[in-house]
């Protein structure tokens, strides 16, 4: 690409896509805080959430700066509605198997682990590429985030193998979570207009280029975990284009209500 004609800043919608993924999964994983299966995992999930929310903050700050007109990280996180969010549908799903009520008592740690694994395996590849983005600010955010998601991948992969290659019960739950969640990853490989724009400007990643590496990461872990990859196919979700499941509204209601009840509040 000719450097003199290169656009060196990421499109705002692309930043929001990356930020919303991090924020919504961070908010989801934070639901385990105080309810983790053991205290070490409780802390681990809180650490994971804070990493993701930290990534979201950097991305929102950058997006707000681009957007101008008084936008701030808070206005982007707390004052946008469901159709404005650009996260994958995968990250907004509750921690429950498909047919269970999304109640706290029905939360399933295998679902949490499988989702974190599928998402972290993608983000390791995405941040690796974005480190070399001509957008220097995005490249700096990528370098910092990469270290964090490397650990998220290690943690979730470790538990995936322990569950899959564990007891009959843990194997069955891990397989059910995989069967439930893997179809949602088809959304990774269907570029949104924001991703296409970012890719064409040279600033973003071509997600299609990552699919083979992601498959290798996933298949390697599934083999070690003695889990079977479900057959692909079916509906492709479109969360990153603003078409969400019924679950996102409930997350936003919980996450945004305080900021909306007391706009501009500080402490």
């Amino acid at each position, binding site marked *: 690409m000719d450097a003199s004609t290169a656009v060196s800043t990421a499109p705002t919608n692309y930043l929001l896509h990356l930020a919303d993924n991090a924020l919504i999964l961070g908010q989801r994983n934070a639901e385990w805080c105080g309810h983790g*299966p*053991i*205290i*070490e*995992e409780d*802390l*681990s999930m809180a650490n994971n959430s804070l990493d993701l929310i930290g990534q979201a903050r950097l991305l929102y700050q950058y997006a707000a700066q681009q957007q101008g007109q008084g936008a701030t990280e808070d206005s982007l996180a707390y004052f946008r509605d469901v159709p404005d969010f650009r996260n994958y549908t995968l990250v907004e799903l509750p921690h429950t198997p498909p047919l269970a009520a999304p109640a706290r008592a029905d939360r399933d740690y295998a679902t949490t682990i499988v989702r974190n694994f599928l998402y972290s395996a993608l983000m390791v590849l995405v941040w690796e590429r974005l480190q070399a983005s001509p957008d220097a600010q995005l490249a700096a955010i990528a370098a910092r985030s990469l270290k964090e998601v490397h*650990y998220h991948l*290690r943690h979730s992969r*470790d538990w995936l193998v322990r569950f899959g290659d564990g007891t009959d019960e843990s194997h069955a739950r891990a397989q059910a979570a995989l069967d439930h969640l893997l179809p949602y990853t088809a959304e990774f490989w269907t570029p949104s207009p924001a991703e296409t724009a970012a890719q064409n400007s040279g600033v973003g990643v071509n997600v299609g280029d990552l699919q083979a590496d992601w498959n290798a990461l996933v298949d390697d872990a599934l083999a070690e975990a003695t889990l079977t990859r479900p057959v692909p196919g079916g509906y492709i979700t479109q969360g990153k284009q603003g078409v969400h499941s019924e679950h996102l509204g409930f997350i936003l209601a919980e996450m945004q209500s305080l900021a909306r009840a007391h706009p501009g509040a500080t402490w």
Partner: protein
Amino acid sequence: MSTDQKSTAPALKEWPLWEVFVRSKQGLEHKHCGSLHASDAQHALQMARDVYTRRQEGVSIWVVPSAAIAASDPGDKEEFFDPAADKIYRHPTFYEIPDEVGHM
């Protein structure tokens, strides 16, 4: 003694105990900072990372099976430790340390 089975998570009964040592800075020694239950060494290391180094406490972690530690018996305290109490000559305080030596 009767124990309340429900109050103890199965994992804590099945997973062995590990002692965690964290080095806070290059050049300093690893210090004991706590213990946790884990199924194996790698598992214990990851848990120690999440529990004991989340506020930048460390640059290196050791985990040791608690069962591998031989400990002195509190009942042996008198014969083990009390005799040292009145042997002040074992402290190197009877020498003049030359200035050139500096801090010891």
